[in-house]
């Protein structure tokens, strides 16, 4: 068995593993937003940035190999992650107090874990639309962090290509593949894997907000860094919760 070290601990890996997949299999937490065990690599959010033999690299796209010394939860790296998160928060409109994803949101949980206590930068307050045209699912673009999980889920698992990323730079945004640009006119269905994969409150089921009481939400039960790997691996888990079942495998 081959090993690399993660913050001084030996982590075994198999041929084809990334640093992220090997670390998560062993129950180690590498902060991330855009990675999912059932979906291909992306490297969109850079929150999983680690130091490999002293050089910065995204853990979700870096192939594991022997003799790698990987730094993960260091003060320096967590500070960089915090900065990335703070930029994500001010770029969109993330009002946790009124968001039904609060307590169940990977962005919020990761921000807590990284010790984020304020926005740091001035908020952009972008004027983004809301798409509630579909009878069963709605999209709040205010909360989209462009992680591309829905894009990859719809392409790789649902084989529908409902979502894509359009625009450039600060105008980059999620688009829906339909003549009107509305979800209702696309091939999307609430049963799609893409319907339940959003790590934030951007793509949500309709008519059922706030049904899970405070203290019983996902990150009330355990902080993101202490979540059990297998328990939350959507590829191995029966759908037992009532959120649609496609939770991200944090």
């Amino acid at each position, binding site marked *: 068995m081959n090993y690399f070290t993660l913050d001084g601990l030996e982590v075994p890996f198999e041929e084809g593993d990334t640093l992220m997949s090997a670390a998560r299999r062993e129950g180690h937490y590498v902060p991330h937003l855009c990675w999912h065990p059932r979906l291909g690599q992306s490297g969109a959010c850079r929150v999983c940035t680690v130091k490999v033999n002293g050089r910065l690299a995204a853990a979700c796209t870096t192939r594991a190999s022997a003799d790698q010394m990987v730094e993960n939860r260091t003060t320096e790296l967590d500070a960089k992650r915090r900065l990335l998160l703070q930029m994500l928060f001010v770029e969109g409109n993330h009002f946790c107090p*009124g968001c039904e994803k609060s307590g169940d949101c990977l962005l919020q949980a990761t921000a807590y874990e990284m010790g984020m206590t304020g926005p740091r930068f001035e908020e952009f307050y972008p004027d983004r639309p*809301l798409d*509630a045209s579909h009878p069963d699912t709605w999209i709040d673009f205010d909360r989209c962090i462009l992680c591309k999980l829905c894009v990859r889920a719809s392409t790789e698992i649902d084989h529908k290509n409902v979502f894509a990323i359009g625009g450039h730079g600060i105008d980059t945004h999620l688009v829906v593949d339909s003549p009107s640009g509305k979800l209702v006119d696309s091939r999307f269905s609430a049963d799609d894997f893409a319907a339940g994969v959003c790590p934030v409150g951007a793509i949500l089921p309709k*008519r*059922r*907000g*706030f049904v*899970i*009481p*405070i203290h019983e939400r996902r990150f009330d039960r355990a902080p993101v860094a202490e979540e059990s790997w297998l328990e939350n691996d959507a590829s191995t888990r029966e759908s037992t919760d009532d959120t649609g079942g496609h939770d991200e495998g944090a």
Partner: protein
Amino acid sequence: METAANPNGLRRVAIDPVSRVEGHGKVTLLLDEHNRVQQARLHIVEFRGFEAFIIGRPYWEIPVMVQRLCGICPVSHHLAASKAIDIALGIDQVPRTAELMRRLMHYGQIMQSHALHFFHLCSPDLLFGFDSEVARRNIMGVAQAYPDIARQGVLLRKFGQEVIRLTAGKRIHGTGSIPGGMNRHLTPAERDELATQVPQMLDWCSAAVELVASLEAQNKSLYENFGRLNTSWMSIVGTDGAMELYDGVLRARTAEGETLLDGADAQDYHDLIEERTQSWTYLKFPYLRSLGPEAGSYRVGPLARVQNCDVIPSQRAELERQRFLAHGPVHATLSYHRARMIEMLHAMEVIGELLGDDALIGGELTAPIPGPGSPDRPARRRGVGIIEAPRGTLIHDYAIDDDDLISECNLIVSTTHNNQAMNDSVRAVARDAFDGREVSEGLLNQIEVAIRAYDPCLSCATHALGSMPMEVNLVDAGGVLQDSVVRHGDGSFERMPSANPVGVAERVNP
């Protein structure tokens, strides 16, 4: 006294901010050379925008979102919104368990808010005197001079907050009530933990009623005449006429006790109540349509509810109500305090009764929500939720579009109903108490005492979106007004004659 006949040369005194109330407001007085008040106004200077920014949001977010109007009575907004959304969705009745959990949450809210208001905010005035030493006139002063009273106040509020935490999930801004019902039960341990404290809490509530009654008896003339007004009253009552704070029908009576309306369905509130605006405050002035803007103002809150109901359906509070009203209708503004404590006692009795019901710890929590294509889904989805919040009648009105988004919203918040009365009480005190005396801190506090009696929540009340009129005055080094520009509520500007720096534009809402 709302607007001075000739404000030129009058001395301006401002109480800014009004202290020991929820939210931010100020009082301005214009005094002549003999220290007589020529103009007195309570201005609400906060600005909120809830009615506008919840438009376009999905309906299931609303009960959680609108409760951010307030940190003191979020439960009232949480539940009024839930009830309105239920009606809009075509849900006539939530499951019994959900109804009881909501009621428990609401009565916990009434209790903690009343305790906070009386003990923390008002008892310093009533125990030490209106113009007592200012450094002592606060809850810390009460804790030093009357440690038992302060302790009971703090623990009563704590109990109410615990009721809220166990029903809503958090003491402030919980998520317990959702469209169609609730998201949680009580555990048997949680219920028992609350139930064991009920006898002690009831005794302390009774003691609080007794305390106000004895303060009244010690200074009868002050309590009867201070800021006194004769107004109509409005509240909801149960369909049987009994006191009911969670759900009921509208009743309004004149100062003499004559019925103005009774058994009115909250869904029709628009036909009964109209609101007008004034350029100098963010707070609207509601009035009964049938009486018109001049005569139609009324008061809400504990003093209205205790007198509007035929009976309080709990033993101890009903005895206190009878004692309170033994000599006929009560119009004294300071009597709000005693009525509030009678209600706190009633709320505690209701909590004790509810905690004996096993439906709280098991049973169906939500009614099904009629989805697209369901025959139970109303063609036009609009609903009005009405509830008696601690400060008075609270009305939430929403419409939901075909995409499940909020398309219309109107909120009439308890404090808004009392706006005219608070202004009139301020003027009554200004007229009676000032009357040529040199202005002092104690004298100004009397104005605040009158406002505090209504337990106003100014942040709740200024939820509306609009263009606040603004006035800019250019005053030279000698204090002489050189120029004055007024921006009106409709956005237009006007240069005022320098002799009249107080621009007043009145308009009535269409």
